[in-house]
């Protein structure tokens, strides 16, 4: 069963604009992670936010977490063509040491 659902499924923006992707989940989590996947490749970890955190930054990335709404958002500021990729949220629940991934947002940044 899918724990995380990303929204929108696809997003197309101009270079320099900000991109916002959202993730909703169903059950209480230990942490929520965001991964990027370039076309036809493996996933790369971007950032992790724990359940007791509300906001986290890493370079041009900003992640927020609202546990009351069971949702998270990933903001990429000043986007570049190289940011074109699929972005996935993943949740860790309990002590299972497993991640449950959403279906992803395909981001296209136009030069």
């Amino acid at each position, binding site marked *: 069963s899918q724990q995380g659902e990303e929204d929108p499924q696809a997003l197309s923006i101009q270079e320099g604009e900000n991109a916002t992707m959202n993730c909703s989940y169903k059950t209480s989590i230990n942490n929520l992670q965001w991964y990027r996947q370039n076309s036809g490749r493996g996933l790369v*970890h971007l950032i*992790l936010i724990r359940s007791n955190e509300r906001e986290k930054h890493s370079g041009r990335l900003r992640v927020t977490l609202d546990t009351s709404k069971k949702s998270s958002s990933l903001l990429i500021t000043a986007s570049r063509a190289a940011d074109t990729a699929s972005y996935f949220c*993943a949740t860790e629940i309990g002590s299972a*040491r*497993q991640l449950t991934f959403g*279906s992803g947002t395909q981001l296209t940044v136009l030069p």
Partner: protein
Amino acid sequence: DVKVTQSSRYLVKRTGEKVFLECVQDMDHENMFWYRQDPGLGLRLIYFSYDVKMKEKGDIPEGYSVSREKKERFSLILESASTNQTSMYLCASWTSIRDEQFFGPGTRLTVL
């Protein structure tokens, strides 16, 4: 840096063939995972392993088995490949001292 390698980037097999997908990690991680990725469905967990000779079913284990004889190697086996197993297969490893999973480049399997 952690490196996770998968034996093939592309693989074409016939229905009924036995298929082995190999995954090797070089950082002594105790946890390893196999996912399949299909359009619109994201990543779905097939099997995972917390230790050598140990395996646990994920969300979609039917039609698959796994083997972990050595800590660094985790194999996914399709006993009798079927066309609905055409997919991208991703291997990942994870250590308990880090929170992130490290992924291999993926194997795109086509079953004809």
